[in-house]
């Protein structure tokens, strides 16, 4: 039997978290490129909630792994 740990399969939570973070960052970019009222609305009401959701999903995943004892 080998001692090398077998990596866990990628979870749906992590994929959603990555997706939300990508969308969140993507919606921040128009504001950084050109500030208009519309890009500001996009940043305030779409980008920030998406980034918060990404962080929340990632935190849930970290706690799940901690409970199963396979974080490190």
């Amino acid at each position, binding site marked *: 039997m080998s001692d090398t740990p077998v*990596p*866990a*399969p*990628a*979870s749906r939570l*992590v*994929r959603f*978290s*990555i997706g939300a*973070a*990508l969308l*969140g*960052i*993507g919606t*921040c*970019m128009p*504001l*950084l*490129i050109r*500030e*208009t*009222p*519309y890009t*500001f*609305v996009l*940043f*305030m009401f779409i*980008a*920030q909630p998406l*980034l918060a959701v*990404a*962080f929340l999903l*990632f935190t849930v995943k970290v706690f799940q792994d901690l409970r199963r004892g396979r*974080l*490190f």
Partner: protein
Amino acid sequence: MRIGRRLLPALLFLSLSVTAAIAAGRDDVIPRPHGWIGTTEEWARSLGIAFAILDVLILVAAYRSHRRTGESPASRQLLFVAIAVLPVGVVFFSYFHALEASKTVESCGACHVMTPFVNDLRNPKSDTLAAVHFKNRYIQENHCYTCHSDYGMFGTVHAKWEGLGHIYRQTTGRFTMPIKINNPYSNLRCLNCHATSQKFLDPAKHPQEDLPALFSGKTSCIDCHGPAHPAPETRASR
């Protein structure tokens, strides 16, 4: 540690390139002094873009690594940086940039409803109070914001809060034409600059007995010095 050693040079390179690109795109009339490296706002903006690009690259790398090999400590570290660390930088610099850029005349003029007001500022024939201040550079920059925000920290907070309301109404179309100023215009905004000027203190122009009414706001500066902006019926033609 290894991630940090790779991230920092990448971040520095990206922010320098973006700052250089932004500085190259400026159409300044006045030449900048020797050794000019950009404004704080330009640096904040380029750092925000650098953080965002780096974050997207790391997220894509983490996603690919996840698909190929599943979850591993290295991919978790990458994800932690990309989801919990870098977005904080992106949001911070986005706010910094947005709060500064939203003070400019261009930002106020970005809504169609404001176009006649901004056109009037630049109209060489206009003699409205706002146009006179703008064309003579009585106010150096952020002309709309300077006259339409109260002074002090809470003046800024109040102006930003009202600005958010303007953005909401513009985006949802909840406003009626012609637009009107939300609250009566406070004399204190004029007096903050004019109250100690010789022209204002000249009794021939502002008699001593009139000053209490001006300071208390019973008499509006605009009553004698208006109109501040073009009248609703002439806005379309300006």
